[in-house]
């Protein structure tokens, strides 16, 4: 279908493209699902509409009623997607945003009228989550959807992303995705384990560098409730961390096959390539991976054009997952 009554109907049903030309193993195919094709530009459109519609069903939000405010911590894409949905539904959105996200992420929030509440960049997403929790507790009339703990987050992927993947790539053997709130991995992972038993679920963890250095104590650590509520430790088969340089290198390599994707997509592709290289000789596999967003929001980082070592140093200071 290419004719829509509302932008919200355009969320999901994203295309999958063959990226096997970048596979290091001739017996391993790699397919990339292009979530940048969502109307607000990322996989988080699926989460935003799911969170808001769940709150409306529960009566926590009433469409069209004046004076309703939402608060949400986000390093960018969830905030941007929620800002678009809230604009259409008439809700006021406050996004708690670490100060060190790319300038384009900040600007996109303003496009759809969100209010930005800055949290310390040195505390990364942990700091944004903490500040949002505090502000939500102090302002009980605000609606706190809390994507890190809300079952509507993985549910969006269980009911849509997972079935789309299995319909388009029924021969899938491995699903490789990034670990943020863990919503994509938990929702798609659970769907695939149920409907294509034996599918391996691999998590790619962003490098944590400077932000981790800001922790005062190990007890300041954080595991998203979405991960523990879905028994993530048992659902995942493997978790690997990728380095900033690999992330940039693979973001660039993806342009060789025409894909202009965000830096987290490069990181996840680096993980998919690792996965492909570990498939034993004589075995074949089909990996499906996610490109969370397109490259537009990262042009200011010079990721494609500047000296790679300079880009890597710059990338260590911004949040791109």
């Amino acid at each position: 279908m290419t004719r829509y009554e509302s932008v919200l109907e355009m969320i999901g049903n994203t295309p999958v493209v063959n990226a096997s030309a970048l596979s290091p193993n001739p017996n391993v195919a790699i397919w990339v699902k292009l979530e940048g094709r969502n109307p607000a530009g990322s996989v988080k459109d699926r989460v935003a509409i799911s969170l808001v519609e769940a709150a409306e069903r529960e009566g926590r939000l009433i469409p069209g009623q004046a004076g309703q405010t939402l608060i949400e911590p986000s390093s960018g894409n969830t905030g941007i997607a929620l800002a678009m949905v809230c604009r259409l539904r008439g809700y006021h959105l406050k996004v708690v945003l670490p100060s060190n996200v790319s300038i384009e992420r900040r600007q996109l929030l303003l496009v759809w009228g969100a209010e930005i509440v800055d949290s310390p960049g040195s505390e990364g997403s942990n700091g944004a989550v903490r500040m949002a929790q505090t502000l939500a507790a102090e302002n009980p009339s605000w609606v706190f959807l809390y994507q890190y703990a809300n079952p509507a987050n993985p549910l969006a992927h269980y009911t849509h992303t997972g079935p789309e993947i299995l319909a388009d790539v029924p021969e899938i053997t491995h699903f490789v995705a990034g670990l943020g709130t863990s919503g994509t991995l938990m929702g798609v992972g659970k769907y695939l384990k149920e409907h294509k038993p034996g599918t391996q679920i691999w998590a790619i963890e962003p490098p944590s560098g400077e932000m981790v250095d800001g922790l005062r104590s190990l007890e300041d650590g954080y595991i998203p409730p979405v991960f523990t509520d879905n028994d993530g430790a048992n659902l995942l088969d493997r978790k690997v961390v990728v380095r900033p340089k690999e992330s940039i290198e693979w973001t660039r390599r993806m342009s060789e096959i025409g894909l202009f994707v965000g830096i987290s997509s490069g990181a996840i592709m680096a993980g998919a390539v690792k996965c492909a290289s570990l498939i034993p000789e004589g075995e074949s596999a089909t990996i499906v991976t996610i490109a969370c967003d397109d490259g537009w929001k990262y042009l200011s980082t010079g990721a494609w054009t500047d000296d790679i070592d300079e880009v890597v140093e710059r990338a260590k200071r911004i949040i791109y997952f």
Partner: protein
Amino acid sequence: MAVTLRIPTVLRPATGGRATVDAVGATIGEVLGSLSQEYPALTPQLFNDDGSLHRFLNVYVNDDDVRYLGGLAAPVVDGDEVTLLPAVAGGASA
């Protein structure tokens, strides 16, 4: 087996400020055990009370999370790099 451990900033007070430490063992459990013997102040930050891996500590062998490689029983070989990192929310900076 001799491996190199990378210690995160938050744990360095317990290692006298050292960022890398050498340790021996055939498994992650043995490596962390020898580390906690050498630096007893680290013990409560490595293990829960029941002896399992501390829930906010992630341990990687050459970038692979050991929780999915057999946990404390995960094998190590000479020259492996073992990285300890606190668990943090997704969206961490690079």
